[in-house]
């Protein structure tokens, strides 16, 4: 056996990165477009094992066929989880090929969902999902539990507009109980705290709606990274399948959700791809999917969207904003402006 070294791999060092591409292709693993960190194990100058993470999910893990059975994946996983530990990340997820499920179970990972012939999604805690589901149930007022027509919807609301309000209002009218999951990932110009508050204020008058923080299990960096990044359609569909399967398998069952409600999406390609996947997959898990058409702005021609609000904020067009957000959101935004907290929003040019 030759000299073994472990070192970080980056696209800047092309020879290393070319070896990474070669190894992953050889082992039939897709190289993700967005990775936070990649490590490689070399024997002399040949890459024989690799692993990466994106945020808190380990991905693109592979050991060359010529070197399997030597505990190399153990080293890679130790290194990656140690790096995450040093960043304060303790709840770690993992995506890999279904045939490696046993291998990673032996390394202390537990399976959440398996998409046949595609991937297996795992986490390093045994009862995290149980505790999460318990929390969801506990947050739900008793009067709202176990009702025949229960719906669920997931919202980022960056910020909460009349369009979002319309969606929730429709859901509240048509269903006995509505579970509204607020995307917790901090990847939008409005913080989770602000978004949650604006949603809460905006739906306070609806007494059959309960809010839940999404946690890492729905539309998160772990379950649906494409939501936060620009990815090709095939990748989006793959991520969407995972997110939707988790929802149907765990969240919907725990809360008795029979219908997932979503707003029609004329503008965002990623969301459209997601909705398409949902419409196909959810019924196989006994959850139906209802798409509610968008409302348009006062001119009647432009659908109301949060990105429009962000644009109007950059233009300082408070009249324009007032026309497409509920009074509670307007109040919150004005308070943020008074507190000097709108500067980052105004300067941002990202997707979210």
């Amino acid at each position, binding site marked *: 056996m030759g000299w073994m070294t472990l070192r970080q791999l980056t696209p800047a060092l092309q020879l290393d990165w070319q070896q990474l591409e070669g190894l992953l292709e050889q082992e039939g693993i897709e190289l993700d477009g967005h990775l936070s960190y990649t490590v490689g194990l070399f024997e002399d100058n040949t890459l024989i094992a690799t692993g990466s993470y994106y945020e808190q999910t380990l991905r693109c893990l592979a050991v060359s066929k010529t070197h399997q059975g030597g505990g190399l994946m*153990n*080293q890679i996983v*130790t290194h990656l989880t140690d790096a995450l*530990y040093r960043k304060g990340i303790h709840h770690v997820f993992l995506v890999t090929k279904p045939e490696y499920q046993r291998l990673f179970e032996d390394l*202390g990972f537990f399976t959440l969902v398996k998409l046949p012939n595609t991937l297996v999604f795992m986490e390093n*805690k*045994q009862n995290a999902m149980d505790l999460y589901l318990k929390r969801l149930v506990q947050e739900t007022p008793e009067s709202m539990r176990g009702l025949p027509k229960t719906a669920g919807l997931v919202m980022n609301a960056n910020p909460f507009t009349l369009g979002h309000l319309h969606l929730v209002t429709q859901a509240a009218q048509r269903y006995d109980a509505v579970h509204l999951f607020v995307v917790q990932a901090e990847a939008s110009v409005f913080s989770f705290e602000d978004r949650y508050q604006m949603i809460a204020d905006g739906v306070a008058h609806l007494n059959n709606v309960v809010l839940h923080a999404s946690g890492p299990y729905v539309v998160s960096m772990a379950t649906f990274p494409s939501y936060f990044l620009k990815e090709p359609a095939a990748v989006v569909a793959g991520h969407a399948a995972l997110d939707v399967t988790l929802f149907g398998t765990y969240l919907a069952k725990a809360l008795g959700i029979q219908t997932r409600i979503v707003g029609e999406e004329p503008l965002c390609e990623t969301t459209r791809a997601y909705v398409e996947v949902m419409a196909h997959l959810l019924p196989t898990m006994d959850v139906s999917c209802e798409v509610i058409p968008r409302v348009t702005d006062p001119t009647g021609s432009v659908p109301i969207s949060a990105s429009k609000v962000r644009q109007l904020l950059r233009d300082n067009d408070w009249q324009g904003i007032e026309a497409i957000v509920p009074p509670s959101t307007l109040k919150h935004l004005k308070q943020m402006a008074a507190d000097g907290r709108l500067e980052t929003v105004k300067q941002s040019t990202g997707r979210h």
Partner: protein
Amino acid sequence: MKLLTIGRAGTLESSDLLITLEPSSSSDIEIQLKSSVEKQFGRQIRAVILETLESLGITEGVTVTAVDKGALDCVIKARVSCAAYRAAGTAGDSTVYNWEV
């Protein structure tokens, strides 16, 4: 010893133990163990973990997650102690550390 944060020590290599200690609000010590020799040594491994924690004055309010790859008792003791000191934030403070062998 009071645990303030999550402490971790060890690796997944053969004959080692990877252990994480997390402060919890419960009144017990909960051990979640994954071991390649669970049937033969599961009970022994748990006992050594508990004894080591006890010797450090830790008897409640901890969730222990351990992935065992065939570690000997001395290795378990060493990794548990290291994780505990990291969790307590006094790692490297030799005036409180019981150096033993």
